[in-house]
């Protein structure tokens, strides 16, 4: 249930750590897993945590406005077979306007709903899917 002002974790190595949702693209409802949103980078991943390479190659800065795809939600997502999935946090992956991920790797589990929404690039980058 991602809507205006929702704070999400950014789980790729683009350099953003925490982002804020500014808009849900293409629908009037809240965003769920696999939906595209516009975000504002609120916190950068600091150099100590991500290593020197990431710090120098940080592709986004604080205050940047980017597009992103929601990959995990706290809100339960029901699947067609009746099973539900729910994560402990809200997370997203930054993408550019054409839909390619800005980071080169993802750390953390992502929802399987991305397959249905045709985000196969992100799915293949993720270490695990649930």
């Amino acid at each position: 249930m991602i809507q205006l002002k929702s704070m999400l974790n950014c789980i790729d190595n683009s350099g953003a750590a925490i982002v804020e949702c500014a808009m849900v693209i293409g629908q009037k409802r809240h965003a769920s897993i696999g939906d595209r949103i516009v975000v504002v980078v609120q916190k950068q991943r600091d150099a100590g945590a991500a290593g020197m390479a990431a710090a120098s190659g940080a592709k986004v800065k604080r205050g940047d406005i980017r597009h992103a795809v929601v990959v995990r939600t706290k809100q339960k997502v029901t699947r067609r077979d009746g099973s539900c999935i729910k994560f402990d946090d809200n997370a997203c992956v930054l993408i550019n306007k054409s839909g390619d991920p800005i980071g080169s790797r993802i750390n953390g589990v992502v929802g399987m709903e991305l397959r249905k929404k045709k985000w196969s690039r992100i799915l293949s980058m993720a270490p695990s899917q649930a």
Partner: protein
Amino acid sequence: MNVTPLARRPLSCLKTSLLRQARQQKMFSRSMATEVQAAAAAATSKTPSQGPDQNFYRLVDKKTKSVRSAFALYPPPLAAAGKPLSPPSTTNPVAALHDLQIKKLDPTGARTALFARTREAAKVGDILLVTHRRGGEPFAGVCLSIRRAGIDTAVLLRNHIGKVGVEMWFKIYNRNVAGIEIVKRRLKRARRARLTYMRKPKHDMGSVAEFVSAWRKSRRVFQTKGAKGKAAGQGGQGGKKKK
């Protein structure tokens, strides 16, 4: 003295007299209403035996003694069709439907037995492993609650995948669920029906991956040496339930 106000304010006098008359009429009509009600009740008891033409709205007529009520009186539909009403069934139809569906989806009864209220059944707090029929990794987790609702019976499993808590509901009679296995039983019986407190950091169990890998290893011990190579792949699938 009494006459003067009348002369001075003729309208008020008229009003009082009118009111009085109206009140009297109301009293009268009230008594009429009670009479009508009683008569209508008598008519209702009679109606089914009489035809539908008797259901015309009727008022009491003093001479003919017929009743005219404000509501149409209809005979019960099935009685009108000529069929006697069958008595309502004693069994719960929804439960019967659930039984039918469960029999269809779980012919061996293994799934029902796994979550029955017995000593051997899985309980909250146990670590369960759910295998999907349609690919994907099997999902293991602590069972936080069992929602018993006939064919919709479901279990809530919680696990940590890469530092993130993940919870999943699984319908136990789902055909896509190839198997549910008990990886590890809780040492002591849980004293709650729903272990929602296990979401809190203090009580969180964390990842159950090591329990699952230990359980896989223990299963391999019991298999014969020749089948060992093949068994590794089937480890998650075999045993407790297939289909």
